[in-house]
């Protein structure tokens, strides 16, 4: 199959890593042959994976040294357990120590792995701190979100701690999944089977319009690659660390969001309020058409 057409969504984590970074450049840390598996799943009679569902290592991207992590959505929904989380933390801490230019996080995850509950929660929190420590050390941390499981739970928070997020329309970024909300608060609150609503609420296009992701690409490994290169360059052209001015700007934007959109019940209303002429057509536009229609109207992201 022509590489240009390769779907990011349908690729496994390993395939994404092989195809996105410079050919043959990826070297894995703690590879499957190390057999560092989950110490907890066995007791629950659940199958393990030799890489505990995440591939981490170093590579080059457009000739530049980067570190990379790719979560495997097919294993336990990409959810974070003790070993999985520790691999991410180790990768980020090492990137900070070695002053690697960038870490690219190919995220696809439901968040904390319930089978490892407390360990997963603490791990996600450690990943969060490790992301911010890496940023403080001058490392650009970029998230790619284009997998079918989306980026949910505590990892949806981690993503918004990174310098930039690239999404496809198919990608989703949120905290609680629609099923969880429907179970807790009823189907009138959020009908998890209404796919159009789910994507309007948590999908790439909505996040782009809100300013929560910085780029939208088509479902293509090659396009994610190009956008990652661009995002890294943009991040490294300014400070990667947190700053008071940047956070105050983000604070103002988040406050404005509540004021302007807090009383709305459907994202279509938000898109209309942002000045999109025919909001109902947004879901039909391809990535390039969408960016052309949306970029003048989207909220400024941080």
């Amino acid at each position, binding site marked *: 199959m022509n590489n240009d057409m390769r779907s990011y969504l349908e690729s496994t984590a390993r395939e994404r890593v092989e195809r996105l970074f410079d050919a043959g450049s990826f070297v894995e840390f703690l590879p499957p042959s190390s057999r560092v598996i989950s110490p907890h799943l066995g007791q629950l009679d659940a199958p393990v994976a030799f890489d505990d569902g995440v591939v981490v290592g170093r590579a080059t991207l457009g000739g530049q040294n980067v570190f990379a992590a790719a979560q495997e959505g097919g294993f336990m929904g990409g959810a974070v357990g*003790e070993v999985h989380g520790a691999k991410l933390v180790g990768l980020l801490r090492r990137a900070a120590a070695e002053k690697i230019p960038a870490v690219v996080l190919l995220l696809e995850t439901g968040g904390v792995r319930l089978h490892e509950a407390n360990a997963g929660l603490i791990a996600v929190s450690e990943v969060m701190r490790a992301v911010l420590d890496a940023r403080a050390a001058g490392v650009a941390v970029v998230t790619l979100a284009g997998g079918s499981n989306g980026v949910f739970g505590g990892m949806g928070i981690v993503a918004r701690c990174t310098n930039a997020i690239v999404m496809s329309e198919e990608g989703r970024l949120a905290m609680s999944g629609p099923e969880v909300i429907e179970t807790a608060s009823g189907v009138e609150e959020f009908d998890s089977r209404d796919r159009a609503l789910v994507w309007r609420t948590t999908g790439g296009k909505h996040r782009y319009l809100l300013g929560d992701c910085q780029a939208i690409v088509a479902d293509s490994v090659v396009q994610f690659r190009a956008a990652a290169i661009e995002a890294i360059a943009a991040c490294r052209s300014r400070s990667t660390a947190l700053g008071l001015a940047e956070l105050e700007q983000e*604070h103002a934007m988040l406050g404005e969001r*509540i004021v302007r959109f807090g009383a*709305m019940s459907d994202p279509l209303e938000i898109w209309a309020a942002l000045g999109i002429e025919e909001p109902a057509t947004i879901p039909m536009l391809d990535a390039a058409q969408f960016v052309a229609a949306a970029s003048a109207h989207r909220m400024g992201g941080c």
Partner: protein
Amino acid sequence: MDWQTLADALFPRGHSLSEIDHFLSGIAQSGEQTIAVVGTTGHAPIGVEIALAQARFVLQTVREHAGKHPRPPILMLVDTAGQRLRHRDEMLGINSYMAHLGKCVELARREGHKVIALVYDQALSGGFITSGLMADACYALPDATIRVMGLPAMARITKVPEQRLVELATSNPVFAPGPENYLRMGGVQDIWRGDLAAQLEQALATTPAGDVRSRLGQERGGRNFTQRVIEAIMAGSDVLAP
């Protein structure tokens, strides 16, 4: 424990904490120090507004003391039922509001403010991941509830019988709720008993530099793999230390 009783116990030398819609903030005296206090009450679900309100307080504290020395410590008081489960919060991007709070806490830390957290009642999952778990150190009262999810719901979702989870919880801190388990795993630095004001003063005097939780989890035997995996990657080794 209600927040007023807690505040009186923590700050015998006085405080000016106030609460609006479960959002708690103010300043207080601890020993010789004035500290900034922010948090939630009433098992508040964390939605976009209360996440932003906490962040606002942290940013105000940072701005107010910019350029001055020393910077006042920040104490986060945690009592939450978890993230608010509403379509509206997801639509507005609650993950961004949570991340924003976490980033503000991180900024405060980098600007020289010590940040400690105390779970004084409930801490469920996403509700405290960017408050309590972003502090330099998180503490808990002995009767606090700390967990990801109740065991019955966990049993339903994982398809593991609840009885099995309950059994395993006695020997593996990973599943069981409670401050003792989080302590063993390194997520909680210590559990405060007795003189809370004295515990607070000591905590402020012994705040760790950097994220030490993976090492604590190893030392205390609650997480036997995290620190070794991190060290193997740092060292470029493909095997874990024994």
